[in-house]
């Protein structure tokens, strides 16, 4: 290990208390994310990957273990270091795209002129120039998610956490958004942790893929994806990787279905 | 189910506070729950008050008549406006505008026209109960899925069959809500009418008690009527639930 790892997850566990008893969501997850790395958390539904993301983001407190960001333990949301994007874009319907993007900056007290400049600067390369005055209800699903990502990028945090951000979109839009995210990633220098249940997405985007087991979630395996960008997903390496991943994930998915 | 416990506690606390406050204040004006059962007995035994039975029957009759007319009228107007889109577009907004007027403004005119007898109460009950029924018919027609109609027509359904077997079941959930509201409002209309100016009926008896400052009897009557109204609406909601389950 050379430079300080931005994210260190050490043996975290989380139990949810339900009326029918405690349910272990995550049990002993450990992972170290390297600087400027794109790591995907891949696994079946209910394996706790969103919980892990929530813990990194300071929204969920682990019952055991710890998470360190740049060497400091996570105690709550850290808008200077970590920004989140959820599956539901969560845009404020009463704000225009521009005002949505500027929300985080507004909380920090950045004046309106500055906020506008930064927001426009983020929306334009996303192909949303001319849409900044539109309300979320006037935007398509893909556009809304782009605005949500722009809002997360506006805080210029070194770490970006994304929880199945393209899950609610149709397939074509998903593929396009994936390509676009790769472009964004190459332009910025952030560390990204990306939750998905799509093998395709994980292979297309990640430097490393952490496969999680069915509930209670643990890291089953961490697979390197040493392919150069842009990735040919029908090339031999990608196909081999897909097969290897599927073997692992399939096992866990079956376990999740029976569980 | 701790919620049940809390609900019971809230009810007990409210009753307790009411009783305590009533005891501390002027007993002529404030009646605590402990005095209600005895007052109810006095009311039913018709001591000092006109015999209740006749008035109750009258009120019930007025409610029944008002509701029947409100439903008939509401269904008719609702279907005419709903099925003839051209008429609907013109007159539905006018109907909606009337909703912005506090309903009681019509009652004095009804009293003028029908007098102080039962007909003005029935008329007012009809007026109030008619709106929810009409609006629910209009809403119900609007939400019949066009695909259902298209499928039936493609199978050769005639207009009456189409109406009976496709539209009515599809509209049932929405309409039954309107029928339930209509009942509640018809009841309110009749009661308001009787309280504002009548020579007979439950409202008249309540006014009589209040006029003679027989506060305990008045409170007992109010509790009785309130309970009856809640029971009626409860029954209506059960019917509504049944219909909604059947209609899917």
């Amino acid at each position, binding site marked *: 290990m050379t430079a300080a790892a931005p994210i260190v997850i050490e043996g975290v566990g989380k139990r949810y208390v339900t009326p029918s008893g405690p349910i272990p969501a995550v049990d002993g997850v450990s992972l170290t994310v390297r600087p400027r790395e794109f790591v995907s958390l891949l696994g079946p539904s209910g394996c706790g990957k969103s919980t892990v993301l929530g813990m990194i*983001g*300071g*929204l969920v407190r682990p019952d055991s273990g710890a998470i360190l960001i740049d060497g400091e333990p996570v105690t709550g*949301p*850290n*808008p*200077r270091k*970590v920004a*989140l994007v*959820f599956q539901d874009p*969560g845009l*404020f*319907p*009463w*704000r225009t795209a521009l005002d949505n993007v500027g*929300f985080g900056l507004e*909380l*920090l007290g950045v004046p309106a002129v500055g906020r506008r400049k930064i927001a426009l600067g983020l929306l334009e390369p996303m192909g949303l120039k001319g849409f900044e005055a539109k309300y*979320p*209800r006037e935007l398509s699903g893909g556009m809304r998610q782009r605005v949500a990502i722009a809002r997360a990028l506006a*805080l210029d945090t070194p770490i970006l956490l994304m929880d199945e951000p393209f899950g609610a979109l149709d397939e074509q839009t998903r593929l396009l958004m994936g390509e676009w995210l790769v472009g964004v990633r190459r332009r910025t220098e952030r560390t990204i942790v990306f939750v998905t249940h799509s093998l395709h997405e994980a292979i297309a985007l990640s430097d490393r893929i952490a496969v999680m087991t069915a509930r209670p979630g643990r890291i089953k395996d961490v697979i390197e994806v040493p392919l150069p960008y842009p990735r040919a997903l029908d090339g031999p390496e990608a196909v081999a990787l897909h097969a290897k991943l599927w073997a692992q994930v399939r096992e866990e998915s079956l376990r999740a279905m029976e569980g | 189910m701790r*919620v049940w416990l*809390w*609900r019971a506690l809230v009810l007990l606390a409210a009753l307790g506070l009411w009783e305590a406050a009533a005891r501390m204040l002027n007993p002529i*004006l404030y009646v605590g729950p402990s005095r209600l059962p005895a007052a109810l007995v006095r009311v039913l035994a018709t001591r000092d008050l006109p015999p209740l039975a006749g008035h109750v029957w009258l009120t019930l009759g007025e409610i029944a008549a008002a509701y029947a007319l409100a439903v008939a009228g509401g269904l008719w107007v609702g279907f005419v406006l709903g099925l003839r889109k051209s008429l609907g*577009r*013109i007159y539905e*907004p*006018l109907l909606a*505008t009337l909703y*912005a*007027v*506090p*309903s*009681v*403004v*019509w*009652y*004095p*005119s009804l*009293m*003028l*026209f029908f007098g102080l007898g039962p007909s003005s109460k029935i008329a007012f009950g009809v007026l109030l109960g008619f709106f929810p029924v009409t609006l629910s018919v209009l809403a119900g027609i609007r939400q019949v899925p066009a695909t259902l109609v298209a499928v039936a027509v493609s199978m050769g359904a005639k207009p009456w069959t189409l109406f009976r077997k496709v539209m009515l079941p599809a509209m049932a959930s929405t309409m039954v809500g309107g029928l339930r509201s209509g009942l509640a409002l018809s*009841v*309110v209309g009749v*009661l*308001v009418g009787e*309280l*504002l*100016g009548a020579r007979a009926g439950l409202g008249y008896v*309540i006014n009589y008690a*209040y006029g003679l400052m027989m*506060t305990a009897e*008045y*409170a007992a009557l*109010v509790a009785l*009527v*309130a309970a009856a*109204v*809640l029971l009626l609406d409860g029954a209506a909601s059960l019917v509504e639930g049944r219909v909604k389950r059947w209609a899917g």
Partner: protein
Amino acid sequence: MKVLACQALSVVAALAAWEAAVRSGALDPTFIPAPSAILRVFGATLTDTLPRLGDTLLKTLLGYALAVGVGVPAGLLLGSRPTAHAVAMPYVVALYGIPKILILPWIALIFGIGLSTAALAAAVFAIFPVVVLIAAGTRDVDPTLVTVAVSMGASRAQVGRKVLFPAVLPSVLTAMRVAVVFAMLGALLAEMLAGNRGMGFQMQRTALAFRAPELFAATAIVSAVSISVVLFLEHLNQRLGRWR
């Protein structure tokens, strides 16, 4: 536009038919006066009508303010706390379902004939829709929006101001619009039942005295005022809610 013309035409035609019916003797003017007679009376009694209208409106406003002042916080509280909601809502709905006119005689007994009774009546009528609508609106706030704000480091005050307040605002505006009609209803009822001033009392009085033109004029004025207030509030609602 064509619809508007048809509506206007219908109203004018109805008025004309009405006038004709009274003149021809088909309608008895003792019970249903001609529109022209109503207009004449309206002009003649304007100086008396305005203070009466003001009186009723004042009672409505006071009751409305009370209902909103108590009802909005109550609704917000019930909507944001699931346990409180589960415990209290059945009682609120039950009380809402009881004809509130039943307690008006009691209020009149305690507070007498006049302003307080009518204002209280207006408050009692208006508070229920306020609480129910606002509780529902608060419950419907998308929790993701709160999560987003918290993840960006918003303090509790910021979440309240920048997320909860604008999210709940449409429900609050709707509730306030609905409550106006209920408040006026309460005030008018109180005036009819136990009042000596105001439009409600005037309508009751003229009805019992068979003074039909005055009654119809009063009815028309109250209706017009009510419709105007509601239309204005709806317009306000539209302007403030362009994003929906």
